[in-house]
């Protein structure tokens, strides 16, 4: 594993912002192949029938409803969808960070490296977080404590989980800061978050997430709060480091461009459910669910005529209090027929391997071929 790491970093180090797709693919394939050493299960993460509900005064919000997916060792899985589709809640559920009350995981199982996460005691769960599962949050401006130094905040997980001496910890913190591309890392250990720019802070967050060599990183819209140039750098950094360490990434984003560039497979979520899943190639070439078409179609294109309106999906996602037994996208769907509002489709396989969609119209015998 160590040997493979070196190989990858040697091949990878000179490319800082622009990576050729082949490089990434090769590095990733190697990393994925190696990441499984000592694996305890078929997949690093197996989420089965996960339902997370929020018990509010207005009713039970079924934020995540019967969601099933896997993340392989070293794999990057994208979770895409509009705001309020349950992407973040899925990630929080995996780390058992759903605020309770009002939220609660009501059913399902989450197997992380063979461990049933939902059965762990609070204390064991705490030991898993940060050590095996890293978390990168959306807004680096508010995710760092303003009164503590960067060095302390990166060292927190290391001290908590790795039991290093303070000198060894200090060295590791410096090394991590260098890894995420902070210049003069030694001088910056005692700086406070306000002395860092947004992009730098997100780099620090990545350093924190990676601090204990986790097997999985949950990245919840890691670049949404950053501007586009910084965004590219941060994504490249996540990609490079996850390859280097063989870390699996669950990348949550609403930006399909990011998902296409970063992920091996993509799950499209809508209204608390996975509506389509597939490898990046199949999903982007041949989406089998009108919602995915809509998402793809609403991306601005380089050949768009200036002054034209951007394309959108009309309407809003439904409220998730007592959703009807029907396709949840039907009210916004141009292709909806009676069956769509009368019964709910299942997530069924499509022609390509690993490709599945939840849509009556594209099922075999459906009205869209």
């Amino acid at each position, binding site marked *: 594993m160590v040997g493979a790491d070196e190989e990858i970093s040697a091949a990878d180090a000179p490319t800082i912002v622009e990576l050729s797709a082949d490089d990434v693919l090769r590095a990733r394939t190697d990393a994925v192949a190696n990441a499984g050493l000592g694996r305890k299960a078929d997949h690093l993460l197996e989420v089965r029938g996960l339902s997370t509900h929020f018990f509010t005064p207005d009713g039970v919000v079924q934020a995540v409803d019967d969601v099933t997916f896997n993340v392989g060792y070293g794999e990057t899985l994208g979770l895409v969808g509009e705001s309020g589709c349950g992407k973040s809640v899925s990630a929080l559920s995996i780390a058992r960070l759903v605020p309770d009350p009002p939220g609660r995981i009501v059913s399902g199982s989450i197997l992380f490296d063979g461990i049933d996460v939902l059965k762990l005691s609070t204390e064991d769960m705490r030991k*898993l*977080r*940060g050590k095996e599962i*890293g*978390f990168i949050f959306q807004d680096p401006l508010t*995710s760092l404590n303003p009164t503590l130094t960067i060095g302390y905040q990166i060292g927190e997980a290391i001290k908590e989980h790795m039991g290093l001496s303070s000198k060894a910890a200090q060295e590791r913190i410096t090394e991590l800061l260098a890894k995420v591309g902070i210049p003069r890392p030694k001088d910056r250990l005692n700086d406070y978050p306000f002395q860092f720019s947004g992009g730098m802070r997100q780099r620090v967050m990545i350093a924190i997430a990676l601090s204990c060599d986790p097997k999985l990183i949950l990245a919840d819209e890691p670049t949404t709060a950053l501007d586009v140039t910084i965004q590219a750098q941060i994504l490249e950094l996540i990609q490079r480091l996850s390859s280097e360490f063989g870390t699996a990434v669950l990348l949550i984003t609403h930006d399909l461009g990011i998902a296409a560039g970063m992920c091996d497979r993509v799950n499209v979520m809508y209204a608390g459910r996975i509506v389509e899943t597939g490898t990046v190639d199949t999903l982007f070439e041949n989406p089998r669910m009108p919602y995915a078409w809509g998402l793809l179609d609403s991306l601005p294109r380089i050949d768009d005529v200036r002054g034209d309106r951007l394309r959108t999906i009309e309407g809003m996602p439904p409220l998730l209090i007592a959703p009807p037994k029907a396709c949840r996208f039907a009210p916004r769907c141009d292709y909806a027929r009676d069956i769509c509002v009368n019964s709910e489709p299942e997530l069924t396989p499509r022609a390509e391997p690993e490709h599945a969609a939840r849509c009556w119209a594209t099922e075999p015998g459906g009205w869209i071929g």
Partner: protein
Amino acid sequence: MATNTTVVGTRVAKPKATSGPWREAAGRLVKNKLAVVGLVIVALFLFCGIFGPLIAPWPYQVQDLQAVFANGNRPLPPLSPNHILGTDQLGRDLLSRLLDGARISVTVAFVVQAVIILIGVPIGALAGWFGGRIDNFLMRLTDVIYAFPDLLFIILLSVAFRETAFGQALDGLFLVFVAIGLVGWVTVARLTRGQLLSLKETEFVEAAKAIGVSDRKIVTRHLLPNGMGPIIVAVTLGIPVAILAEATLAYIGIGVQPPRASWGSLIAEGQKFIRSEPHLVLFPAIFIALALIGFTFLGDGLRDALDPKLKGKQ
């Protein structure tokens, strides 16, 4: 001489000394004139309290009976030889007694606040962090304490324990400290709870949870330092309240016992001669007022310095 063209500015600027949020607050504090006035008064007060007996012209209990006798058995007026602020009826030097009183007030100010912090912060932190039933129970407890008449409680406590070792400790002062502290922690507890309630929803707390930081560390390293500002302000503004409480108790004869002199008991003794010798009341009153003003100015300044967003809104 004209060839003296030393290139300046090529040296790489040395990285600025790290300045945390606390240092920034200190910078804002010293820019505030009233706060600096408060700081100076507080510094003087502390100096008197700590080094008072060393700089006092006389020990506080020594009687200059000859001088009083020469004055027709009346307290010496201010500016008398050997007694700048005069003496009381027993010939004890007023300045020396005021300095001893300062020592009592300083001790009261800090020990009472320590008691308040030791009780108030943990209770508030527990209530705010755990919420639910624990919060409910602790907050009802503070409501009860809050509703209880302070003075009555302190007097009852003092009277009940006066004869015990507990009541005799530190010339009877210990009891006063504890009594004032026991009724005073309520504000700090409520404040701490409020701070924690709002801070525990912040993302950096979630981020800390996400890397497996223990609850205890989240509260002590993440939440309390962030919520410390208002607590520091409350504690600073609580000091004059404690000083006043001690003076009030001393005035009605509870707490420090003669021959020691608290500012409150000096006023009580001096008021017998208020018509003929007003300085015996005036000087202790001035000392009390100055101490209160000093801490109040400092507290207000701290509030502005620690929460710059608040400035000008109150």
